């Protein structure tokens, strides 16, 4: 009896949380004649892929999708590499000013919200990078340094240093030790970082809204926001477009589930 109540509550919760996605997915495969059927069919009677073809060919959704993939991929690969280099230095090497830099990084996590977006905008505009890929992803790299560096530092510190010490005796260069020995041992950390950064780049809305004025470099969130208005009655097309906006994150999540450790920014403060 008690366990039945637990299941009922959990199922109701799950339906509320994924119900909108089920409606979205189902509607995106329906012909326009079927979308207003009530009660709605869960499995589309006239199942077809036409809506996807339409939004990808007759609307710039394909462009937005490619832009999102490119921008997220560049941001993720560059940031993971730079952050892992810097985090290795923090975790394993000795240098002057280490404590000062550490405090500066932590302090930067306390930011006056979007106030700092304004100078970012001024920098990108002054560099002539408005409406370019670089104008979108270069700041992402900067914004993703501090928090991720602190997390990555933790991953490096968790591996035993004896292996690296042995390599040091063999006269390996510091870069070789980092690249060939330490890096392969923190694979899980790199995956966690890649997920965080990919999702944050895919998610960013306000910045893209600010620095783009045409479709050339617009990403999915902003593209869909602009696309939705005139299509509000075309549920089938709009849901197909929205599905393309959430699908990569969900697929990514299902494939890499074991690295999706729910964490909070606070993990980073662990000294």
């Amino acid at each position, binding site marked *: 009896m008690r*366990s039945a109540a637990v299941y009922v509550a959990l199922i109701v919760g799950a339906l509320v949380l994924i119900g909108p996605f089920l409606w979205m997915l189902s509607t995106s495969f329906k012909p326009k004649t079927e979308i207003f059927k009530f009660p709605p069919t869960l499995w589309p009677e006239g199942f077809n892929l036409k809506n996807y073809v339409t939004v990808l060919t007759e609307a710039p959704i394909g462009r937005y999708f490619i832009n999102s993939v490119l921008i997220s991929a560049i941001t993720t690969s560059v940031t993971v590499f730079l952050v892992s280099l810097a985090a290795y230095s923090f975790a394993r090497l000795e240098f002057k000013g280490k404590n000062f830099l550490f405090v500066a990084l932590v302090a*930067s996590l306390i930011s006056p919200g979007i*106030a700092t977006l304004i100078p970012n905008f001024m920098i990108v505009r002054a560099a002539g990078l408005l409406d370019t890929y670089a104008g979108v992803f270069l700041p992402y790299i900067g914004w993703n340094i501090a928090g991720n560096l602190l997390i990555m530092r933790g991953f490096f510190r968790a591996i035993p240093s004896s292996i690296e010490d042995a390599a040091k005796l063999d006269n390996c260069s510091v870069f070789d030790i980092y690249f060939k020995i330490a890096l392969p041992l923190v694979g899980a950390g790199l995956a966690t970082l890649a997920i965080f950064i990919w999702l944050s780049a895919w998610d960013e809305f306000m910045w893209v809204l600010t620095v783009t004025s045409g479709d050339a470099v617009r990403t999915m969130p902003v593209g869909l926001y602009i696309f939705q208005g005139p299509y509000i009655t075309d*549920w089938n097309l709009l849901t197909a477009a929205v599905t393309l906006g959430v699908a990569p994150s969900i697929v990514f999540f299902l494939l890499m589930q074991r690295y*999706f450790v*729910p964490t909070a920014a606070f993990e980073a403060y662990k000294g």
Partner: protein
Amino acid sequence: MGKLRTLMSKATPYLFLLPALIFFGIFVLFPMFWSFRLSFFNWRVVSEQFTGLQNYANVLADPIFYVALANTLLYLVTTVGGQVILGLFFAFLLNQRIRGRALFRVMYYIPVITSWAVVAILWAMLLDPTKYGFLNYALMSLGITGSPVHWLTEPWLARISIIMFSIWKGLGWTAMMFLGALQSIPQKVYEVADLDNATTWRKFQSITLPLMSPVVAVVTAQLIIGAFNIFPQVYILTGGGPLHSTESLTTWQFSNAFTKLDFGYATAMGFLLLPFILIMTLIQMRLVRKEFEY
């Protein structure tokens, strides 16, 4: 050769840091100082003029700032409260001996990993205040209401919609954070309590609650900091309207910055709020330190 080598080995740590610090400096550190400076200037596209505390005075004299502040506090209290309470509730359920826990975890986490803006658009379709919103369409087809409900165009319904959406989006995260904490409580502690014939309530009170409270505190602090920056849900669902009635601090800041191009006003608003965020972050850092010291 030897000298060069020692020089190189001294420089190495900095060379490792350099690329990351360049990006950090240009896009985080410099903007922080520059936005502070901007908050004392009357900035125009072609010129700028030092005006002291004028921007701060303007913010404090602006009635919409107080609307946005009140809304942000409302969103903060309701969304943080809702996520924590429902998160605890579902974490306890998921921690029971049940089948399909892995599946539930996946389903609960899906809203968390999808893009804020994209799912806000999905919700905008569901809540569209005309008869073409799916929810209105369903309610009207069922004969529950004869005319469309003004979900996003009536001030209170719009605020409630924003709050519901925010809780829906974040619930999975709090539930998983709490579930992780529940699972880290050693089963032995409960077994010992069972030997003493402790009741379920007693066990909850003297084992679960004290061991959970640090995590609850940390999650709450994190949610509060996040709630100060509530943006896409308001911007996409209502645009801050009708007549600024759902405006949050961030949407008001954004429209001042990028619609009215009043950079001074927008940055001053950010720095007026900084003390709150600073205090929350310091509390959070203290809590974390405590939690991991034992």
